[in-house]
């Protein structure tokens, strides 16, 4: 690809445009077709058969309303786990759709563990066991079987088309060749998932992408919203996962499946001392390590041979590298306790509450633009089934836009997008010696976030001063990434540059949110050393919105279940 290279421009129009063919996106497409005779276009960066969070498979359905429980009890649980910073209206409407979504998945072929009476075998009131290895292929097959859904794969969406705060569509580029797609629709759903890769990962060398969250979910949806002036919420609530060391495989299967307890290096069980919310459980392990009683483990030694074998199988169905590690080292869980560690922070609205500020119907503050799944804020603990439930709500809400005329994108808008892409390809007149590659800039960004904005290296701690330094360094990197035209070889390299830009945009917002919450609300997820205690004056949402190039922080009062929130 060279600067004079010609872009091919392809225009596609549909009724309902879905950005990201993952969990929420695929489910929304199916729901839309059940309730309307209209057409759907899914624009997906990879191949919907294995794209996104579900690629390797999942272990369980984490969000389900078991007999004896109610959607309201799920709201209470999720809100308490988030220390109060969650939207009651979003949690309730999501919870009400959970069981319907699970039944639908079973119809599509998902295998679910049943008890003797044929009911789902629920554990702990909200968790059911499945064989989740093929959950994404099952979903993809259903989508492919619906003739009114068009799937556009291997395209990366990078910018919304918005006029007068109304969405018209989005721009995307092919990951293989110089093609600019102009996608227009009556309503648009953003379902691009959360963001990995902002912080230096656990293993920054060769295995830098052996992380929990998919490294290919780069936060495009968040960044596009931020740049288009959408209101966003709760980016300061980062998610840090407690995982098996090195493989970053889930720990829940060990903790719940064989009741493995967290123990420190002295063999003491410490987990009860710190409380039971997600962030407190993590905080326990971090504190034991910090105070010299690490490394910490899940105590699995002593389990039966049968349990040992079942665990190896269970991990093959969701995190095969863990089973490989056990077997090649001979240190299976019956033989050796499993070391655990905290990951680098992720931004993921399906676990915590970061993302678009939506109304109860999942419409963002940009008219006609909806959000669901990990990219949508305010509604933590939604996981797979909650992403389905939100996809369903968003798709049904989008129906009300179907009477609108199909928008027309101006030629000037298209040419602007093309020029923007070309600006990345412009070769500097003289390639300066210190010009850095996308990889180098990304590494630098991760190092800055790690050291100054509460990553692993700083023990997840930050202060007003360190955040100010982070903001300044990220600003400089963003400038370098935008102005220092990179010597790009092909379409793929351009995609990587756009991903870096997305991450830098998001880093800037994360830092601003961390600085605005002058307290420590979720000690495992991060500690503000200037304000180490929780402060109830911050029983509110921290939102942000870009206006005239500047990020403005807004404080919004808590919203309860039963209320209908409108923008």
């Amino acid at each position, binding site marked *: 690809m060279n600067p004079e290279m010609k872009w091919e421009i392809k225009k596609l129009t549909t009724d309902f445009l879905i950005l990201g063919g993952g969990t929420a996106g695929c489910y929304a497409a199916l729901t839309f077709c059940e309730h309307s005779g209209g057409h759907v276009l899914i624009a997906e*960066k*990879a*191949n919907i*058969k*294995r*794209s*996104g969070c579900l*690629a*390797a498979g999942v*272990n*369980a359905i984490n969000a389900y309303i078991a007999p004896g429980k109610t959607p309201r009890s799920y709201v209470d649980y999720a809100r308490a786990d988030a220390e109060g910073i969650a939207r009651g209206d979003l949690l309730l409407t999501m919870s009400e759709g959970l069981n319907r979504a699970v039944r639908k998945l079973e119809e599509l072929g998902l*295998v*679910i*563990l049943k008890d003797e009476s044929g009911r789902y075998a629920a554990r702990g009131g909200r968790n059911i*066991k*499945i*064989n*989740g*290895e*093929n959950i994404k292929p099952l979903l993809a097959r259903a989508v492919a079987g619906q003739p009114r859904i068009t799937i556009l794969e*291997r395209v990366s969406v990078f910018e919304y088309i918005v006029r007068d705060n109304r969405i018209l569509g989005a721009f995307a580029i092919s*990951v*293989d060749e110089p093609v600019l797609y102009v996608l227009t629709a009556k309503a648009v759903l953003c379902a691009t998932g959360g963001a990995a890769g902002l912080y230096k990962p656990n*293993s920054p*060398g*060769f*295995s*830098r*992408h*052996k*992380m929990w969250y*998919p*490294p*290919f979910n780069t936060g495009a949806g968040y960044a596009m919203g931020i740049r288009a002036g959408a209101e966003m919420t709760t980016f300061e609530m980062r998610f840090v996962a407690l995982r098996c060391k*090195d*493989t970053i495989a889930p720990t829940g*299967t060990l903790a*719940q*499946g*064989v009741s493995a307890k967290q123990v420190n290096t002295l063999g003491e069980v410490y987990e009860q001392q710190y409380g039971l919310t997600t962030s407190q459980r993590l905080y326990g392990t971090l504190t034991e390590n910090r105070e010299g009683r690490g490394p910490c483990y899940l105590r699995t030694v002593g389990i039966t041979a049968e349990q040992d074998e*079942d*665990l*190896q*199988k*269970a991990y*093959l*169905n969701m995190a*095969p*590298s863990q*089973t*490989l*590690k056990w*077997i*090649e*080292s001979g240190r299976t869980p019956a033989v050796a306790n499993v070391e655990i560690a905290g990951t680098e922070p992720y931004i993921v609205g399906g676990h915590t509450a970061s993302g678009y500020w939506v109304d109860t119907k999942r419409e963002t503050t940009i008219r006609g633009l909806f959000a669901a799944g990990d990219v949508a804020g305010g509604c933590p603990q939604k996981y797979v089934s909650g992403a389905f439930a939100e996809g369903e709500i968003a798709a049904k809400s989008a129906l009300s836009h179907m009477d609108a005329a199909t928008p027309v994108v101006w030629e000037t808008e298209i040419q602007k997008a093309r020029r923007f892409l070309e600006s990345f390809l412009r070769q500097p007149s003289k390639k300066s010696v210190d010009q850095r590659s996308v990889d180098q800039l990304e590494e630098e960004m991760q190092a800055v976030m790690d050291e100054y904005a509460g990553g692993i290296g700083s023990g997840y701690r930050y202060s007003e001063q360190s955040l100010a330094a982070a903001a300044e360094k990220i600003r400089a990197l963003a400038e370098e990434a935008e102005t220092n035209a990179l010597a790009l070889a092909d379409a*793929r390299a351009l995609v990587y540059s756009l991903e870096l830009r997305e991450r830098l945009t998001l880093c800037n917002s994360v830092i601003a949110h961390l600085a605005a919450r002058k307290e420590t609300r979720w000690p495992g997820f991060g500690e503000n050393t200037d304000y180490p205690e929780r402060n109830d004056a911050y029983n509110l949402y921290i939102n942000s919105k870009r206006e005239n190039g500047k990020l403005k922080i807004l404080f919004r009062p808590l919203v309860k279940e039963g209320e209908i929130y409108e923008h």
Partner: protein
Amino acid sequence: MSIEITRGVCTGCGKCAAVCPGSLIKLAGDAAVIERPERCWGCASCVKECPAGAMALYLGEDIGGLGGRMTVKCEGGLLHWRITMPDGTPKTIAIDSRVSNRY
């Protein structure tokens, strides 16, 4: 984390390249290649797709990898995972997709 493709065994069918969630695999001539192995997530999607058994998953040395290789063959509802130990000994685990995890 990464994958290894055995030239000679790979038939160049392209299935792995089509499915990778990071679009990391390319066809070069008549065989698949992964150009940036350090960008691999280790999800094993490509490995499950490969009809020839040409594709194996391994753990990087930086995360304690000892040189074992893992392939998988899908037959009907069964997944046959085959692990070749660092010393060459094979071990197979079969998983029935129609049976739920117990944990």
